[in-house]
């Protein structure tokens, strides 16, 4: 894809993200529950004056339109505001939580693709075999099952019963890790801290599987069905007739074509990964964006919720842009 087209796509994304910002702004304010009331309820004795001062400070005494104006003015200047409850800039809080979420999402997606693509291909090549039936039943289960239930199930089996894996957090307290990037696996490799690496990976296993399982299920099914379609094509017979080994026929000639629809689904699934991480981060006490946004919704911390949702929207748009770029690489018929 040409650079100009990529830049154009990025520019188109800006109004999309602002639009999402406006929607989440309105939804938050139209949701019953007042941030000051919630906060004061927790604080105990407060005077009317203090409440009024807070309302003024956060512009909550103004009309909705004026508040939206303030929000947009700050947003286009790159300022997401200050968290009501934590008293710190929203961007700081996001920056702090983002690496945890990205690391988890990465390993979740990694697990999903590592499992789903070979399963999809093998199921298609050995259609209606036992392995196909078992994996498709597994995929069906993966689509139906609630994600928190899988998380809890894994905790019961691998932490409580077997005692192999930790149940919460990103790393053990007894491990000292010097932070460089905020990605613990990466940091421990950079600093050569092997005990930290082991601990970080142990902490990642169950959350990644829980997060990645539904994605794996969908990707495996899509991969299987597009592979089945591709395998019926003449060019597959042609590839065999040329004298290619079956492995080359499948992996080079067929898979390359079957990846085209699969990549689209993967792009959309990255968005689902974000939705899933709120649940997974809550189940595994993972200190990422998902848990941050869930807790801030409960206390109606408007700026924080808006900030995180905008980051989600940005990730979603970016993932789809990457998919589109990949698409032109995979499918020569499409030139953007």
């Amino acid at each position, binding site marked *: 894809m040409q650079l100009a087209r990529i830049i154009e796509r990025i520019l188109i994304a800006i109004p999309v993200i602002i639009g999402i910002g406006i929607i989440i702004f309105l939804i938050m304010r139209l949701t019953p529950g007042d941030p000051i009331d919630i906060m004061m309820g927790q604080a105990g004795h407060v005077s009317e004056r203090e409440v009024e001062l807070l309302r003024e400070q956060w512009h909550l005494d103004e009309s909705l339109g004026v508040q939206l104006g303030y929000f947009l003015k700050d947003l286009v200047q790159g300022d997401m505001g200050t968290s009501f409850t934590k008293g710190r800039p929203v961007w700081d809080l996001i920056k702090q939580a983002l690496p945890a979420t990205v690391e988890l999402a990465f390993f979740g997606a990694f697990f999903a693709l590592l499992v789903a693509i070979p399963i999809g291909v093998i199921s298609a090549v050995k259609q209606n075999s036992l392995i196909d039936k078992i994996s498709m039943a597994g995929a069906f289960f993966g689509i139906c099952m609630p994600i928190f239930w899988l998380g809890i199930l894994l905790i019961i089996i691998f932490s409580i019963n077997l005692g192999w894996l930790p149940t919460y957090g990103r790393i053990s307290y007894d491990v000292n890790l010097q932070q460089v990037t905020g990605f613990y696996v990466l940091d421990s490799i950079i600093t050569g801290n092997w005990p930290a690496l082991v601990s970080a990976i142990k902490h990642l296993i169950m959350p990644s599987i829980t997060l990645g399982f539904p994605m794996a299920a969908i990707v495996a099914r899509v991969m299987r069905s597009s592979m089945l379609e591709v395998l019926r*094509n*003449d*060019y597959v*017979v*042609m*590839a*065999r*007739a*040329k*004298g*290619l*080994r*079956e492995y*080359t026929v499948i992996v080079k*000639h067929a898979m*390359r*074509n079957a990846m*085209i629809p699969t990549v689209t689904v993967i792009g959309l699934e990255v968005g689902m990964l974000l939705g899933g991480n709120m649940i997974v981060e809550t189940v595994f006490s993972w200190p990422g964006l998902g848990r941050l946004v869930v807790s801030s919704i409960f206390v109606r911390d408007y700026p924080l919720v808006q900030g995180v949702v905008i980051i989600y929207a940005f990730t979603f748009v970016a993932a789809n842009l990457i998919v589109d770029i990949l698409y032109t690489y*995979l*499918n*020569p*018929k499409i030139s953007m």
Partner: protein
Amino acid sequence: MLLEVNNLQTYFELSRGTVKAVDQVSFKLDQGEIMGLVGESGCGKSMTLLSLLRLVPTPGKIVGGEILFEGQDLLKKSSREMTKMRGKDLAMIFQDPMTSLNPVFKVGEQIRESLHIHGYFQESYSGGSRRLKAEKERVIELMEEVGIPSPMDRYYEYPHQFSGGMQQRAVIAIALSCEPKILLADEPTTALDVTIQAQILSLMEKINQSRGMAIILVTHDLGVAAEFCQRICVMYAGQIIEQGQTDDIIEEPLHPYTQGLLNSIPRLVPDKPRLQPIRGTVPSLLELPEGCNFMPRCDRAMEECRLPQPLLELQNGRRVRCVLYQAQAKGEGE
């Protein structure tokens, strides 16, 4: 004898019964010969070709017979040995060029792949980049040979940037790349315009003459076969029902089905009706009659037709699977 097929049987075991897609097919092919395999769609022509390469799609299986290529039975080869022979000794081109090239790879690369996997230039150039260069040069020569204009540029184009005729030329270039001894052509011109058809056929004829490559041409068009082939096998419902020199078959078709096939070619002769179709339809391969497969549609059917019909050996290398010629037969030529 380059290729000798004896009693080839390819069956599909379905839940509703056994489909005999290729049933007791026998023929011979000489070096440099062009043989036509003619019949209606679904008569087993394409399956015969795929059986020769042992690429019958599941649930089909070759259940019997032998395929002697230069005296060696292909059905006895290991699948590894067979893989090596495909493309190198026997190459195949397909009916629809639009779908026989892989849409995601450059055309030139698809031709080069054939050369590469069969180890062309492997010995002469051990270095990767020099080998690649030699392969590319050969591909460009091949593209020139099959009549693709400006092959230097077209090497880097994708199949969708090629017209149908050009795609078929590229497919032919792939098939020719390793100089196979036999080219299996499965309706190579059916999906193309009539003018392009003639071009592709003359290209194949040129290759046949310049390289002495034998060709088995599968077609439903008796006209094409008559023009192009030295010998013709007519297939009906999985079986070869008549076989002989092209001129003999066109001038004096023996089997009632071949006669019907020739009669059903539209003619511009004033006194005759323009079209004489064969009555009835091709039977389902699941519900074949006992005995002669053509009997239900045959005007000359008789009681003896209910018995299994052998392929009778007649004069001048002709063979026919019909009870009418029993008296003239030299013997049974199964």
